[in-house]
């Protein structure tokens, strides 16, 4: 019996070793990936979109990050403490984090690869919130004490950020702000090397230097972005081996999903988004390496509240919502991959209201409202969207539905950067837009997308303005009781649904298809774009 037990133990140990052996990460290789468009910015202070973020996440690092399940975990901070009334946050920084020592083909950086201290964070926050930097996302941290005075140019530094010593960073807030720490995971709030930012000055956007696992090599506009391994990266794996495993990351800019798919099939790409025509085939062929999960995001058509025909015309905006059949669109055109939307908050987010009464498909009602809106014979409008076959498909499908009730929708597609700029400037009456979560809080959807202070590039592209809504969302930001916050947000969302500054279309599902030999790749709940390649390796 004892012998037998010994035998069993031997086998178990042996099999464990085999398993362990098989899972020992391999170093080396170039990760081959694709972006669907040229990123508008690599400067993290300016980046507001997922394509830019996808690259920035590899080069730069934040104090805290969202793990693949969307939970907040430390990154460059080792721990943090929040005081009793949530107006002070103290971060204890990780030691031994160094800026990139070399970049762009081995050229030494201006900072020389020195260690990051709390003073760098203080400088960085001053830089991001500097009115001259003009960061469209600085206002995410507007509750840092002294933010407004600094923005107005009355003082020359941000009072609420200070270094207690080299490894202790303190934030003081002017008022309670519930999602503050989650906001710091956003890709703008990364630590920057002052020397390099000042050296490159207005060309900084094209020569990013950070602390991340990969250093910037080159960016051929509309063609390719190439990053290589940061040899001095602070991260270690569970066995104490240095990270990252990959030698380099290559992101080719491939606008056409069918090209991505063909490139993936011949293994010129390790990861791809799967467009509808290949969806079923991908699911079948790559059953074990095709991932899908709900993403906190909302796809919508925005209606500019300050331009005709939508200005002061609620019946028209409601008619736009009643005219489309979201369920059928999802089922027939989108392969059932998304979730039809009734409001703005995605399912899975705090404050999501499953009983929210949204707009059902009701063409008769839509026609009636159209009459009430002053367009008994219909009208003609132009939908602007960024060039992508996926957007074109949705636009074309909804164009036909609008035609049914007498609304003639012309389509106009523009390159992503231009689309984003013109929309942010408020020049476009009707536009496609989608918002995915920057930090896991309804504040990121309701306050950012619809509060009147955030008109334009800050997020309120529809230029919606309603004092009651403003009051509700502003109050919810300061509130710390979850139940009250939830009530406030649900009330605010009900107002939005009724006033309909957007055509609510669907909530996102993120997906990612990888080659079967890719290891340690987990599709993050924030979306494929937020993946970090620190621990990914190739078993080939």
């Amino acid at each position, binding site marked *: 019996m004892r012998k037998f037990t010994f035998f069993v133990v031997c086998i178990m140990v042996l099999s464990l070793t085999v398993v362990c052996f098989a899972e020992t990460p391999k170093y080396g290789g170039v990760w081959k990936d694709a972006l669907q468009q040229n990123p508008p910015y690599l400067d993290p202070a300016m980046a507001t979109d997922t394509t830019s973020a996808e690259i920035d996440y590899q080069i730069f690092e934040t104090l805290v990050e969202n793990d693949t399940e969307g939970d907040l975990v430390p990154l460059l901070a080792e721990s943090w403490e929040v005081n009793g009334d949530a107006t002070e946050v103290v971060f204890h920084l990780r030691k031994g984090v160094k800026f990139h020592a070399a970049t762009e083909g081995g050229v030494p950086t201006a900072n020389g690869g020195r260690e990051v201290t709390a003073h760098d964070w203080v400088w960085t926050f001053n830089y991001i919130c500097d009115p001259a930097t003009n960061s469209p996302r600085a206002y995410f941290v507007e509750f840092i004490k002294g933010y407004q005075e600094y923005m107005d140019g009355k003082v020359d530094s941000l009072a609420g950020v200070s270094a207690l010593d080299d490894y202790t960073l303190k934030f003081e807030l002017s008022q309670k702000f519930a999602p503050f720490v989650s906001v710091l995971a956003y890709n703008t709030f990364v630590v920057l090397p002052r020397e390099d930012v000042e050296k490159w000055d207005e060309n900084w956007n094209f020569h990013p230097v950070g602390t991340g696992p990969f250093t910037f090599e080159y960016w051929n506009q509309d063609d390719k972005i190439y990053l290589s391994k940061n040899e001095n990266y602070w991260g270690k794996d569970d066995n104490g081996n240095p990270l990252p495993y990959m030698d380099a990351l290559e992101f080719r800019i491939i606008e056409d*999903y069918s090209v991505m798919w063909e490139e993936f099939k011949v293994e010129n790409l390790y990861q791809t988004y799967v467009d509808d025509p290949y969806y079923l*085939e991908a699911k079948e062929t790559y059953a074990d390496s095709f991932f899908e999960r709900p993403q906190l995001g909302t796809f919508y058509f925005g209606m500019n509240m300050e331009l005709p025909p939508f200005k002061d015309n609620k019946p028209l905006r409601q008619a736009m919502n009643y005219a489309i059949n979201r369920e059928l669109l999802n089922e*027939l055109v989108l392969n059932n991959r998304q979730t039809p939307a009734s409001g703005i908050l995605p399912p899975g987010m705090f404050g999501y209201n499953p009983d929210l009464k949204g707009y059902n498909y009701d063409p008769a009602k839509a026609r009636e409202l159209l009459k009430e809106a002053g367009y008994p014979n219909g009208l003609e409008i132009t939908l602007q969207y960024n060039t992508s*076959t996926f957007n074109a498909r949705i636009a074309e499908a909804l164009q*036909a*539905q609008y*035609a049914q009730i007498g609304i003639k929708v012309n*389509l*106009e597609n523009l390159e992503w950067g231009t689309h984003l700029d013109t929309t942010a400037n408020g020049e476009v009456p009707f536009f496609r837009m989608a918002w995915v979560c920057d930090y896991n809080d309804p504040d990121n959807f309701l306050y950012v997308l619809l509060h009147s202070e955030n008109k334009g590039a800050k997020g309120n592209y529809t230029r919606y303005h309603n004092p009651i809504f403003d009051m509700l969302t502003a109050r919810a930001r300061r509130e710390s009781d979850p139940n009250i916050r939830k009530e406030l947000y649900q009330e605010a969302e009900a107002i939005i649904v009724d006033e309909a500054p957007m055509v609510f279309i669907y909530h996102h599902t993120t997906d990612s298809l990888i080659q079967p030999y890719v290891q340690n790749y987990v599709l993050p709940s924030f979306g494929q774009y937020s993946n970090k390649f620190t621990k990914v390796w190739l078993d080939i």
Partner: protein
Amino acid sequence: MNVAEPKTTVIKETPKGTSLYRDSWVRLKRNKLALFGGFLVIIIIFLAIFADVITVYDPTEQLIWKEGAKAKLASPSWEHPFGTDLFGRDILTRVIYGTRISLAIALASTIISMIIGVFLGACAGYFGGWVDSIISWLVNVIYSFPFLLFIIAIVAYLPPSMWLTFIAIGCVNWMRYARLIRGQFLSLREKEFVEAARALGANDFAIMFKHLLPNALSPIIVNATLGMGGIIMLEASLTFLGFGTQPPTPSWGNMISEGQRWLSSGQWWWAIFPGIAISLTVLGFNLLGDGLRDALDPRLKD
């Protein structure tokens, strides 16, 4: 003595005056390939004109909203001989309507480029000197641009629309006509009939467009016909790249652009049928153009 009546010399009746165009028609009729090309062109023109009479469906009607999944990407059947696309639109109908767009753009941009090209070429060839130098220089400069890129550059700055597309094509395509006309005029302006016209007091304008132009017309006709095919391809390429005609207008380029994504998943009909339509149209114009060239060339008279 018998007096023979003086024999009237029978003068062979002079052949009835035939014009260049009548001659050419006779020669064209003998050219089977050219006739086939002409036949294709006539069919296409017929389809374009009577598109709404001969089709059953509306080219923009999306049947999926009414009939559900069975109308989506349906393979060719009696009901839909060319199948349907993602939105349940009948592809045969859209291919037929596509002839309208293609022909309209080809015709309009050819006319635009002919007007610009003929006028500038005529001035260059007739006046010579510095007028010729400037115009020839302009032609060379524009010729040196990569054609498709130049058009994309123009179109990219303007809101995409069908009208702009063919104006853009027309503005870039006129050089071929300018060159042709200039060459013709250079040799024709020294001819006696020009001197005669001038002696009779005709002004420059009348000489250029009343006397010289009709004599230089045949190469223009040939070139325009041959160019049609090229422009149809160009329109398709532009639309394929996302410029040019916008959905839901049924244009061949659009259909191929979206349809090709579904080729590898087995829905070949979406892209193949408009592809065949383009090939046949271009083939038709090219065969007809070749035939016209041979027919209109007096040196090839048998």
